């Protein structure tokens, strides 16, 4: 007993010595690296800069200090604050480049690897709108461009001494300033967290190729809270505040916003200066201000002032890019890249991106459903991706093992949606042993027949009703006819249990909707389809995020809030052109008036879109 005890104790001493030596060497090795400063704690804002903007709210028409372009001005000029009373807008939070500009308390905590104690992420809980952020510090990459965007975006961080630098992408569209200055979903945010004692300086540098000509830098101070947490809760529940038609998206037509001059007049600021722009943020601009205040010439007039406050339009803003040169620039992203990428949307549904139009694949015990088949050139890669999914390669929990492709559904009849029909159908098999069945609206089959598409590439399981549904892989699948949207042959597919909608070309995040009037398309139909998506989609939280995911005809995965933004755009542009038609303007005059100026940086060439709407409104 003694011997044993002593042996243990002897071993313990030996172990102690070894531990001490290890400790010493660890200290020796660790000594050069300074541990980063802790940001953990509850922080509350100080509002000693831009108090008007950050607490009570900015004045309409106040664009000062912002390096905005003409597109942003146009957006803000038409912004009607009552738009937030629309049901789908009511509970939308601010995005990460904006939320720190409001009244805010937030908590930072750390997440460590339980085995190594390595700091792998910082978590933030923001009291305003109950938002959570995760700042990954473990070197992981950002998601692909077709991944969903969120209000807070996807963030990674790195330490530079005691400064934490955070890069955030995948941010939804919202605002830089509540007065309607927009931020696009192409915004990238770089933050620097700089702590001095109990004061945290938060630096934000936002880059937005759609609405800013230079990065926008802003800073806020937060003070460590001594006592407890006073973070707010925000369980938003929307309610009908104003009874209005479904298509009513509040906005101001050109020259009708009564508030744009109020801010400048109240403070004696030259109107030109109140409209912002990068040049107004540099010291040299003080000389320009003095000249303007003295009644002198301010310099070359900026066209948007004249445009949106009174009437005639000038040349396009160079910062937005020549319209022709931007034509198709967004659409190019949707062209086949040579690689087909698989992305799990949710439930049993996956996105295959890079094959032309987006492809959705539902996989389960019953087999495989493929919605759209992409370009014919990409078929081999599409099939390879489907086989990987059907073998369980996309998800470790997938139960399907080499399941057959049973169904193909075409949302459109265009070749980028149907190019792989024949090959993918042949690669599959119905329960009767035939090639996989291709389903589409009967108009699609008719259009393809007219176009001389081979029999084996055309849909033969057609429907003519408003809606069709069938069960597959344990979930109801609904097919809705998009009457007169992109064409008269479109379908929208809703996987009800997976909670995923495949929208077809009525919803395309890479460009304006393509309205194929010759084949029965219309802007009214596009709006109707977008509104139907909004009826079906339900966000997972009170705060308009996640829940139902929507796969557009082209572009990234979206949720309801993204569709709302797109619906608003289509409706607003449609209203503007309708107003111009009412005033007797010709198509050339409408094109010159740039009714899509505020969206061109995001969606590219608008000529065909404008022409289609013009033709429709003329009828």
């Amino acid at each position, binding site marked *: 007993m003694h011997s044993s*005890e*002593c042996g243990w*104790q002897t071993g313990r*001493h030996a172990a102690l010595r070894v531990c*001490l*030596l290890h400790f*010493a060497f660890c*200290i*020796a090795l660790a000594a*050069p*690296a*300074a541990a980063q*400063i802790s940001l953990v704690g509850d922080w509350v804002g100080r509002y*000693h*800069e*831009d108090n*008007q903007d950050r607490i009570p709210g900015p004045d309409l028409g106040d664009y*000062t*200090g912002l390096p905005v372009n003409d597109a942003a001005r146009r957006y803000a000029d038409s912004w009607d604050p009552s738009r937030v009373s629309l049901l789908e807008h009511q509970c939308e939070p601010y995005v990460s480049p904006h939320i720190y500009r409001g009244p805010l308390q937030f908590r930072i905590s750390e997440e460590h690897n339980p085995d190594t104690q390595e700091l792998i992420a910082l978590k933030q809980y923001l009291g305003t709108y109950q938002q959570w952020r995760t700042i990954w*510090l*473990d*070197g*992981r*990459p*950002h998601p692909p461009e077709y991944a969903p965007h969120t209000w807070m975006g996807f963030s*990674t*961080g*790195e330490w*530079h*001494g*005691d*400064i934490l*630098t955070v890069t955030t*992408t995948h941010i939804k569209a919202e605002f830089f300033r509540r007065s309607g200055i927009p931020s696009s979903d192409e915004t990238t945010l*770089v933050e*620097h967290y*700089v702590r*001095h004692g109990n*004061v945290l*300086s938060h*630096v934000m*540098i936002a880059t937005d190729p759609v609405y800013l000509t230079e*990065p*926008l*830098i*802003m*800073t806020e*101070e937060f003070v460590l809270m001594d006592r407890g947490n006073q973070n707010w809760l925000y369980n938003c529940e929307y309610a009908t505040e104003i009874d209005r038609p479904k298509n009513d998206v509040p906005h101001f037509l050109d020259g009708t916003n009564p508030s744009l001059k109020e801010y400048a007049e109240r*403070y*004696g*600021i030259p109107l030109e200066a109140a409209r912002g722009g990068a040049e*107004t*943020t*540099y*010291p*040299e601009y*003080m000389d320009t*201000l*003095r000249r303007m*205040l003295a009644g002198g010439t301010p310099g070359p007039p900026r066209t948007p002032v004249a445009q949106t406050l009174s009437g005639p339009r000038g040349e396009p803003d160079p910062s937005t890019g020549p319209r022709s040169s931007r034509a198709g620039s967004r659409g190019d992203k949707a062209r086949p890249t040579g690689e087909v990428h698989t992305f799990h949307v949710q439930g049993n549904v996956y996105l295959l991106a890079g094959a032309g139009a987006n492809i959705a694949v539902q996989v389960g015990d019953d087999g495989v459903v493929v919605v759209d088949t992409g370009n014919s050139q990409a078929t081999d890669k599409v099939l390879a991706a489907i086989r990987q999914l059907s073998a369980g390669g996309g998800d470790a929990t997938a139960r399907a093992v080499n399941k057959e492709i049973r169904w193909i559904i075409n949302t459109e009849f265009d070749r980028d949606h149907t190019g792989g029909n024949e090959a993918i159908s042949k690669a599959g098999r119905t329960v009767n042993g035939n090639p996989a069945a291709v389903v589409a609206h009967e108009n699609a089959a008719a259009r393809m027949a007219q176009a001389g598409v081979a029999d084996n590439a055309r849909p033969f399981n057609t429907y003519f009703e408003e809606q069709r549904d069938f069960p597959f892989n344990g979930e109801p699948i609904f097919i809705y006819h998009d009457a007169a949207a992109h064409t008269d042959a479109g379908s929208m597919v809703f996987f009800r249990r997976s909670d995923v909608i495949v929208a077809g070309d009525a919803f395309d995040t890479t460009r304006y909707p393509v309205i194929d009037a010759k084949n029965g398309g219309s802007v009214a139909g596009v709006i109707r389809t977008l509104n139907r998506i909004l009826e079906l989609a339900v966000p997972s939280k009170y705060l308009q995020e996640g829940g139902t995911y929507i796969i557009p005809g082209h572009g990234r995965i979206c949720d309801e809030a993204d569709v709302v933004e797109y619906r608003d755009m289509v409706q607003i542009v449609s209203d503007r052109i309708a107003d111009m038609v009412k005033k007797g303007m010709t198509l050339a005059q409408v094109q010159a008036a740039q009714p899509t100026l505020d969206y061109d940086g995001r969606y590219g060439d608008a000529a065909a879109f404008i022409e289609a709407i013009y033709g429709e409104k003329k009828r």
Partner: protein
Amino acid sequence: MMPWRPASAGPCHRHSRAMKARPPVLAFVVVLVVVVATVPGQGRQGSPAPPRTERSAAPIDLTGYWVSVVTEDWRWRMLTPPKGDAQSVPINAEGKRVTEAWDLAKDNAAGLQCKAFGVGGIMRQPGRLHITWADDNTLKIEADAGTQTRLLNFDRAKHAPAEKTWQGFSVAQWVGPPRARGAGPAPTPFSPTVPGGGGSGLRGGPPPAAAISQGGSLEVTTTAFRDGYLRKNGVPYSQDATIVEYFDRLPPSPNGDVWLLVMTMVDDPKYLTQPFYTSTHFKLERDGSKWKPSACSTDAPAK
């Protein structure tokens, strides 16, 4: 619970003595830790390190021409705000009274044109800073707005002069993490380093060693200054205020921009209800071609 037992009291006495007979093990550990912790960052091999100066010890390079980019408080900085407009500033009743009594003509007549260009307000003036080393232990900040000069003294032996000035007497010290041994010099202006470890700057985690800004800040405490204005329109700070600033050179932006952040804390019980925090950002310029000194002058309020 087992009581603690002295090593000599039990059957393990022999082993305890053996332990006692080996003090060098623990001594070695202690010595190793102490040696490692005290070895200076440079000069471990070869010739003795040159005398340490604050300039050579600078963890960040603040020198160069910096332009203020006025994206915040635009109305209050680019123009002279209306009389009595102290929005955002936590002034108390006395501060409000003094603000409302502001008289630009009276200031000008009294030769107090530089009152808005003193240490409490100079960083908020749109303009450019030219930062240089006056000597190895003194950093000089020149502002073209109001043609002001500040000297930031690292030498603790120096004391504030009896006469108060607009810019006062500033004592500076480097603060922040100790720099790693073997680390290169502080990044120079426009050094081709960007944050991010690749993937177009979109990856997280530690960036390549060469791209790491080692961080560190300059803390500046200023005394012996005259009464001045926080804002052009006479929002006051008193000569008894405490003014502390932190200068941080931010890691380079993906587009190559280099930013200087100056966080200013003005604690003035005479006119403020709480410390007044502002953070002003300046962008590094390649040269002084836009340097444009001007005399202290405040425009009349626009309205």
